[in-house]
């Protein structure tokens, strides 16, 4: 494999995949001017949501990693353009399609890849299911369903959570944090993606990608807070969580949008969305035995991975105290 198109550059996973490909001597082709650059990374201008433009971009491409994870609309439109464009190729490339555990819905228990897909978790999950449908109709696709992607550089499950923990807005959540946190460290996910690109005979395969024996959300939050030095970890009462999700979430989100629109250097504290509470209660365990066997999925030690993540976070915050009671 010589040239791989990475859709979703400028985002956490896309950037890490592009860099990993370049390290392995595979040319990573990324869309537009955003995201990681450097030797081995080729920038290409094309319209992500246009099948013809995509078709042209796919010329000479051996493989594609689709990590598009923006709005539900762009996920659906991007997938439609990708699979239509890929079908136009003389030699259709292998496409590693990143979906999400959200496609399983609000179910509990040990979940294998054959479980039915349910769109009950909202527009994002519905878009992911629709995109999977397109991927399933393409004979060269390998679908990955990662859990909670974390690691250095990850805003959604690392940076944002670090801010909540440092501000003591999250911590030990009691019964609200009894769900399983199906973590996957970014390096392990990237390795699985690369294996999904390289290994023969995986077409049409679907794989859960998460660490075995995941911790509960409480255990994850406490361990991460300790790695960050955001100690003592706070017990967050149900009352406090209700205030966060029912009273503060909407105003904070509106402030965030306004600050972004006005290009202010200041950002409000991240909102704790109500959907997060549902996820943190959900006792779902992604069974990733299939990925362990076929993609050679291996997971780093959680404490080590959290230490790496915390070190990144500390560096990104610059010198100075990291929280009200932070300890060096």
């Amino acid at each position, binding site marked *: 494999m010589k040239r791989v198109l990475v859709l979703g550059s400028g985002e956490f996973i896309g950037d890490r995949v592009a860099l990993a490909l370049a390290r392995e001597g595979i040319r990573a082709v990324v869309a537009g001017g955003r995201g990681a650059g450097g030797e081995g990374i080729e920038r290409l201008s094309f319209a992500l949501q246009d099948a013809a433009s995509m078709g042209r971009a796919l010329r000479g491409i051996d493989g594609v990693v689709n990590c598009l994870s923006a709005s539900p609309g762009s996920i659906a439109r991007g997938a439609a353009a990708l699979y239509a464009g890929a079908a136009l190729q003389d030699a259709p490339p292998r496409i590693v399609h990143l979906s999400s555990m959200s496609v399983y819905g609000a179910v509990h228990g040990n979940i294998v890849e054959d479980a039915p897909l349910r769109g009950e978790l909202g527009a994002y999950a519905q878009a992911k299911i629709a995109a999977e449908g397109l991927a399933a109709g393409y004979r060269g696709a390998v679908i990955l369903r990662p859990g909670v992607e974390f690691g250095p550089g990850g805003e959604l499950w690392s940076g944002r959570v670090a801010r909540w923990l440092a501000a003591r807005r999250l*911590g*030990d959540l*009691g*019964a609200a944090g009894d769900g399983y946190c199906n973590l996957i460290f970014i390096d392990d996910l990237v390795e699985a993606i690369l294996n999904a690109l390289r290994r023969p005979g995986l077409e049409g395969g679907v794989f859960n990608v998460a660490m075995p024996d995941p911790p509960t959300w409480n255990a994850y939050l406490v361990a991460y807070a300790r790695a960050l030095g955001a*100690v*003592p*970890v706070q017990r967050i*009462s*149900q009352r406090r969580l209700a205030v966060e999700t029912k009273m503060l979430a909407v105003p904070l989100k509106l402030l965030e949008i306004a600050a972004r629109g006005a290009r202010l250097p200041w950002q409000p504290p991240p909102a704790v969305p109500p959907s997060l509470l549902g996820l943190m209660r959900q006792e779902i365990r992604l069974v990733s035995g299939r990925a362990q066997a076929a993609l050679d999925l291996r997971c780093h030690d959680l404490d080590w991975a959290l230490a790496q993540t915390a070190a990144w976070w500390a560096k990104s915050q610059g010198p100075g105290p990291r929280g009200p009671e932070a300890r060096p």
Partner: protein
Amino acid sequence: MIVDAGELPEGHALHADICIVGAGAAGIAMALDFIDTGLEVLLLESGGLAADPRTQALYEGEVADAALHSPPDRYRQRRFGGSTTIWGGRCMPFDAIDFEARDYVPHSGWPIGLADLLAYYPRANALCEAGDFAYTVGAAFPVPPRPMMQGFASPHFSTDTLERFSCPTDFGRRYGHKLRAARNVRVVLGANVTSIGLDAGGAAVESLRVRTLEGRTLAATARQFVLAAGGLEVARLLLASRDRQHAGIGNAHDVVGRYYMCHLAGTIGALRFTGPLHAVHHGYDRSDDGVYCRQRIALRAETQRGLRIGNFIARLHHPRITDPAHRNAVLSLLFLAKMFIPYEYARRLHGDDAVGTAAWLQHVRNVAAAPFDAVRFAAHMLRDRKLAERKFPSIIIASRANLYSLDFHAEQQPHAHSRVTLADTVDALGMPRLRVDWRYTAGDVDTVARALALLAQDIAASGIGRFDYDASSVEAEMTRYGAYGGHHIGTARMGTDPRSSVVDADCRVHGVRNLHVASAAVFPTSSQANPTLTIVALALRLAARLRVQGAAP
């Protein structure tokens, strides 16, 4: 799933692989451990999701001496969550010496050792929400907190051990959602087990008789049965089930209900430190996982052996609240707020000292003299206790005079005449009530008296101050409020010999192959430690054994 027995038809037969009686700390811990194991579990609970006076009245009984033991319906709760609904949350494991047969502690010696429980303590600690299983200063704190008494060095006492505090966790509120969602666990509320029915040979439980307060009768059958109804109720159930074994189940040798222990606790003396105020650390430290931890003064095992006395710990404590001579606004405020503090804690906090009008007025003057102290304290208790889910565990008042008293908590020795029996009266369901005849021995007084004397000596020898107390008042102080409330230990003790014990090392009732006990009732000795953590650890050990056996009959 959680259902109410009242919704089931008359005569309904409940069936499961494992039937657990009592949804308190032990019963809920076990049920949680069976989730998704493929075993069908029935958890029978007398009470409902909230307290109900009619159900609680089923706990009423008699005491031989009201000065020595609280009424049997106090310090325990007959409802989902059991007595964890009123639990103070203090956790610590037993010490290795507690399991040993000690020739100076009659009837001591467990058939298992600390090593048999170490695999279960961390999970028990997690269920109790007491954080890491780390019970020494070194293990719990990467950066050591201030020592409790700077300069105190003793060959006899350690200040390195900790007690850790649960939220405190009401097991029903905390874990009810998991039981409700579990497909293989059925919790039946309002289900009062009134007797245990053995088979014709008396070697196995056939079914339990279950009654509701509305008069419905149900039956519960299972392959394995676990009594997890608390240290008093387990004995009552065994003694009241007399169809096949006339003295009660497991009681062929008259052991059930005997060797009843609580703990010996009290507050005594005046401990005056001579160093600077900051050399004394009276209070809690929070470990990184957010748990309140407290250092304490623990009698070392080798000293116990040398002195031939039981286990003992002590903590710094504030002066007696009722006496306004302490001139402390906060203590006076606590005295005046007595009516707002639950009975289980108010009794020990205030005692039953008679307080006259003059003293009462002096308390008011104390508050008025330092109103900001009282306001600050009230704000702290509101924020850190009342409104917090992880509650500040107790009232801590550092003395500006460097003056404290000592709070002690000591092992009570097993004693055959300290016992619970069935009374002649019956409850609303026709079940015999319990009669409690708690007694202590000269050996118990000796444990406390000699430990205090040694502590006074070591404090003086360390040059940090002096501990003055009236040695002749030790017995009076340790029995001032009678048996320590809520610790009901030893009534179905564990051992290898059916002549001197009720259950074997696997907590199975001797001679009844499918009946087990998960409760402090099985502790042969009481340790210095509060029992809840070890109750949960033993329950998890029992659950593991039943899981491995696949609940085979």
